[in-house]
């Protein structure tokens, strides 16, 4: 009996030691099916480090953070900030009573406070606590003008996602899309959380198929405003634009190579729609497809070696893959009779596309090896133009499922579908910005770390 007990004890100690030293900082693997959301508590932000003062600014900051984490689909945020704030107040600024937070079922806790300087500049101090390990795991300080408030909170929420899931969040990214709400089809951008809608073009014509550059500084898109569907580059703030490809016929459906050096696009100057690539300085056009049927809608693989595209060489639109020099064409899709708009995931493993079944389009993903086709949308009208987030966790697409044609975001497994556009009109052709590039969105917020 004694033998067994001792053996068991030793085993337990051994096991615990291995766990303690073997555990990493990645808490959950969101790519595994059925992963559990992280439960996080977020009381209101506090002003000047004291818990007496609570105003609209602090509530707004908490609201932005709560929303960012909620819409990420990775967290369950404990609601009722008033109740949480009372708890935070009771334990004071420096202490954290981990037990009282764990009792709520929370695994993580955020505490933040801010000061407003005489120069009207904001300084926000944010801390993230792991309630199971009972320690602070993240500490950040942000300084900037008040109008950068959203950006600063988004920055912290992305850091939280990075710390707890191993990949940075998408709160600082933007989506560009086409809307005809103004009476003409123009280019717009919007934040991941649906705020900050900005109109980029005033061409009063037809804008189409935007594609955000990997560097984040500009967007390639097609516009008819000079009489022909030509390809333009427009700076991501909409202030400068220049024509890049102006062949007779179509200059459309651009897609940037992952290193940003080339663009693949559809040109119809040689008879019917074919796929070409060219250097972003406007030179070195190379033709890739030479079929007498039409080929269009190219999408680069993330390693820059292959291009997926649509073609009706068998009679109806299907998706094919070819090498970046046009060689070795193979067919990818074999289901139904209409598969188009390929979008290659930044992780390289899946290609999203639109497939028509029974007259309506739905978004599907298929392995780049042609296996494991999965349907992501159903019973929601027409779903088209899929495009991946830079972390490969989300897909943005257009859908008429809500009665109007609007832009939606969903997790890459089809869950957590959320409408993004509420401006009216028809909204479609979305493209996702790269991960935040500070220069691209021009701000003077500084980041400091106390961790």
């Amino acid at each position, binding site marked *: 009996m*004694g*033998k067994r007990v*001792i*053996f068991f004890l*030793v085993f337990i100690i051994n*096991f615990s*030691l*291995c766990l303690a*030293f*073997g555990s*990493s900082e990645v808490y959950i693997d969101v790519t595994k099916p059925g992963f559990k959301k992280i439960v996080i508590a977020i009381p209101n932000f506090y002003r000047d480090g004291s818990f007496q003062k609570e105003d609209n600014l602090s509530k707004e900051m908490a609201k932005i953070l709560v929303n960012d984490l909620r819409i990420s689909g990775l967290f369950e945020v404990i609601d009722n900030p008033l109740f949480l704030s009372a708890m935070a107040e009771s334990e004071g600024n420096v202490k954290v009573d981990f037990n009282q937070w764990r009792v709520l079922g929370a695994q993580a806790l955020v505490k933040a406070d801010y000061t407003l300087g005489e120069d009207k500049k904001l300084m926000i101090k944010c801390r993230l606590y792991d309630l199971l390990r009972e320690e602070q795991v993240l500490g950040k300080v942000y300084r900037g003008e008040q109008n950068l408030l959203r950006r600063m909170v988004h920055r912290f929420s992305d850091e939280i996602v990075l710390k707890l899931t191993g990949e940075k969040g998408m709160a600082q990214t933007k989506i560009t899309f086409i809307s005809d709400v103004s009476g003409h089809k123009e280019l717009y951008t919007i934040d991941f959380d649906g705020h900050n809608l900005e109109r980029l073009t005033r061409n009063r014509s*037809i804008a*189409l198929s935007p594609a955000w*550059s*990997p*560097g984040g*500084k500009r967007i390639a898109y097609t516009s*008819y405003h*000079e*009489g*022909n*569907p*030509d390809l333009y*580059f427009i700076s991501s703030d909409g202030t400068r634009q*220049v024509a*890049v490809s*102006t*062949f*007779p*016929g*179509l200059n*459309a*459906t651009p897609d940037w190579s992952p290193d*940003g*050096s080339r663009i693949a696009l559809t040109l*119809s100057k040689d008879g*019917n*729609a074919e796929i070409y690539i060219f250097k*972003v*300085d*406007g*030179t070195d*056009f190379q033709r890739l497809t030479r079929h007498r049927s*039409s080929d*269009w*809608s190219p999408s680069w693989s993330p390693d820059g070696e292959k291009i997926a595209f*649509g073609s*009706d060489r068998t009679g109806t*639109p299907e998706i094919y893959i070819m090498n970046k020099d046009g060689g070795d064409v193979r067919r990818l899709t074999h289901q139904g009779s*209409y598969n*188009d*708009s390929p979008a290659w995931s930044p992780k390289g493993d899946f290609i999203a596309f639109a497939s028509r079944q029974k*007259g309506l*389009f739905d978004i599907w993903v298929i392995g780049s090896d042609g296996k494991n086709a999965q349907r992501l949308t159903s019973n929601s009208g027409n779903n*088209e*133009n899929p495009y991946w987030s830079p972390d490969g966790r989300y897909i943005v697409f257009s859908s008429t499922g809500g009665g109007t044609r609007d832009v939606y975001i969903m997790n890459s497994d089809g869950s957590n579908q959320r409408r993004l556009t509420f401006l009216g009109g028809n909204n*479609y*052709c979305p493209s996702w910005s790269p991960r935040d*590039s500070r*220069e691209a969105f021009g701000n003077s917020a500084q980041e400091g770390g106390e961790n």
Partner: protein
Amino acid sequence: MIRKAELVLLSVLLLVSFTVGCVSMSRYKQLESETSKLRAEREELLARISEEELEAMPVPPEISALRGKVLVEVPELGDVYFEFDKWDLTPPAREILTKNAAWIKKNHPVEVLLEGHCDERGTVDYNLALGDRRAKSARKYLILLGCDADRIFTISYGEERPVDPGHNEEAWAKNRRSHSRVVAP
């Protein structure tokens, strides 16, 4: 009582597991730091390329023939219609094109722009290609009838410029068309 041998065995097991745990932990940390180093390098590379993007001045390789030209409507030139997902010309379409060809030849050297349109049901991208084929199909026929090839241009609007925004068969049939305009003299 535990025998000495068992105790030794247990201690060895403990030591081995502990070591394995530490080694795999340090290997993991090594992989982690390698990955973040690679990530940082990639971010830097992307940032550098963005600078070059700004510097580069793209030069249009060829000016499209229609840039800057003013186009006007001509009621004498009728629209031709197409069947769903098709770009070949039906007999009624050929009749209309025959009449149009007569007008075009009579008004030589007029420059004509043939538009290709689709209904909303296909994808945005596919419909750009389909509209292109419809316009080129009409153009080919006009040339067969003796019109000057150098004076007939095509443009595809895909599904982007419907005449009827409805979501029914009637609207769709009206939108599957080729429409003509001419360059102002």
